[in-house]
């Protein structure tokens, strides 16, 4: 049995619930103590409305907000921190682009290209933009093992294509999209590349300058930060040419009776009092991830993913979806013959194993796979081999319950405990 190091002790919820096997980090991640401490420390020492008061405490809050932006920008290798807009998360970031950029740049007869992998958040805003603007909406299909078919993408993209919207990593299958190839194809016709980074930002090194994409959206809560904070990274010239997304305080320069001028980046896209506490916590989350090292995060998750694929795949009646572990993030989507995914999730829950069951907000993908629901286990830095053991053991319990003991492979010996807790 491969031994993998655990960082479980850094996560108070997991420390308090030693029997819990949390395998739903693709939905949201548990929070390390350093993040909770940083948020509390900010509210206890530096909290006021930023960019407002002419008093020291407000200036301190402004500084905290500014420092948080700088820290998060550095995590993504972004040199111009003003091109990082704080949002509520990936969904708001993608809606911002589809609305503020899309409504002013997409015209009747233009084309919008997405892929079959997309989460609803990177599918529906573009579908609705196409309907609103009279544009064509193209969906690029996948290879049999669930990767974006680059040849089909090349055919789908034409001189009328204005935008290619793509998931860096699929939330349902874990598939990693080769963004370099996507960007080259889009670039050849002058189309923008909009990347849903919700599943890549927490799990692999992302160097935004090297990726050479136009927009990259991410969610803090999947990276160990609280809910309600995330971001959009965009090219300065595009952001500057775009109209604002929401109107209100902070995002204006001069408000006249008839006209208003806009504040500079990033404030133009941050109307209202910002989520400063969330930004401070997000900065702490990326410091935590950096202290581990994103290469190590990826290696750790890849080890667990390969282990889960091998051990689940060895069970009779288990079907796995998606590519091999080298081409996917820490996501394992599967079904078990004769047992609906929801029953599987309930049975696993009885054994303390948390997995997602359903369509994973990716109905167009599941329709194509020909299933209405899959079970999905997903890993993060706090998972270890004991979590994989519990998952496999839970699937076998479900098979025993539904089909009787005969289905469990007679050649599989009872495994020794790899970790006691």
């Amino acid at each position, binding site marked *: 049995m491969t031994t993998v190091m655990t960082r479980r002790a850094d996560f108070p919820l997991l420390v308090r619930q030693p029997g819990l096997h949390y395998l739903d980090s693709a939905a949201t991640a548990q929070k390390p103590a350093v993040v909770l401490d940083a948020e509390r420390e900010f509210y206890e020492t530096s909290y006021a409305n930023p960019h407002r008061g002419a008093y020291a405490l407000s200036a301190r809050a402004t500084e905290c907000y500014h420092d948080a932006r700088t820290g998060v920008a550095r995590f993504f290798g972004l040199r111009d921190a003003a091109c990082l807009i704080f949002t509520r998360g990936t969904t708001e970031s993608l809606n911002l682009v589809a609305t503020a950029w899309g409504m002013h740049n997409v015209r009747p007869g233009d084309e919008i290209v997405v892929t079959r992998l997309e989460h609803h958040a990177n599918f529906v805003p573009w579908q609705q933009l196409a309907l609103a603007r009279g544009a064509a909406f193209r969906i690029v299909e996948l290879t049999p093992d669930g990767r974006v078919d680059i040849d089909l993408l090349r055919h789908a993209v034409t001189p009328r294509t204005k935008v290619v919207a793509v998931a860096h990593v699929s939330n349902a299958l874990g598939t990693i999209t080769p963004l370099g190839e996507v960007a080259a194809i889009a670039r050849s016709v002058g189309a923008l590349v909009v990347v849903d980074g919700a599943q890549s930002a927490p799990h692999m090194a992302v160097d935004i300058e090297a990726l050479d994409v136009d927009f990259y959206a991410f969610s803090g809560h999947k990276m160990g930060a609280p809910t309600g904070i995330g971001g959009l990274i965009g090219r300065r010239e595009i952001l500057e040419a775009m109209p604002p997304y929401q109107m209100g305080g902070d995002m204006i320069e001069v408000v006249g009776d008839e006209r208003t001028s806009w504040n500079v980046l990033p404030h133009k896209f941050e109307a209202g009092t910002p989520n400063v506490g969330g930004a401070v916590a997000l900065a702490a989350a990326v410091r935590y991830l950096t202290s581990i090292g994103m290469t190590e995060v990826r290696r750790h998750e890849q080890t667990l993913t390969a282990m889960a694929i091998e051990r689940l795949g060895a069970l009779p009646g288990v079907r796995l979806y998606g590519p091999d572990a080298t081409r996917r993030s820490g996501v394992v989507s599967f079904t078990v013959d004769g047992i609906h995914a*929801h029953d599987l999730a*309930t049975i696993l829950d*009885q054994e303390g194993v948390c997995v997602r069951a359903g*369509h994973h907000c990716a109905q167009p993908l599941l329709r194509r796979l020909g299933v209405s629901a899959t079970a999905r286990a997903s890993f993060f830095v706090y998972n270890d081999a004991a979590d994989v053991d519990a998952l496999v053991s839970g699937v*076998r319990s479900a098979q*025993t319950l539904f089909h009787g003991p005969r289905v469990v492979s007679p050649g599989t010996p009872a*495994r020794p405990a790899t970790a006691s807790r």
Partner: protein
Amino acid sequence: MSVTATHPAGSAALEALYQEQILAHYRHPHGKGTLAAADATVTTRNPLCGEEATVTVTLDRTGPDVRVRDIRFTSDGCSISQASASMMTDLARGRTATEIAALTDRFADLLRGDAAATHDETLGPLQAFATLSRVPARIPCALLAWKALADALRPQ
């Protein structure tokens, strides 16, 4: 925690949740299919999971209260939703809309953990779902087909 093929501690809880009657109805559902000359066809969807159930009924409207003559369901859902729908077809056939509404309310009480409902004999095989009150996330599964039937019986 030792990792073996079965969990003696967990299996009792599992068997309480997935009673044999539920698994039996899931494996061999009653009333599964579609009625050709249906008087009403209703599909309900659980928006959280996308699961669907379709109920078709033929109705007897000669009396003061509409009565279910025959009933079928289709579903690609979980064992809870399919077993519940299967039992529903047995219970609803020949009953009036008023009787079915009362039974549905009583079933919902049972799923909420109402102690009196666990002794209510009118629920019959539905008593197998009593332990589902411990798993509130799955209660919509058990009620999915019943919602479709309620819609099918709603006065035109």
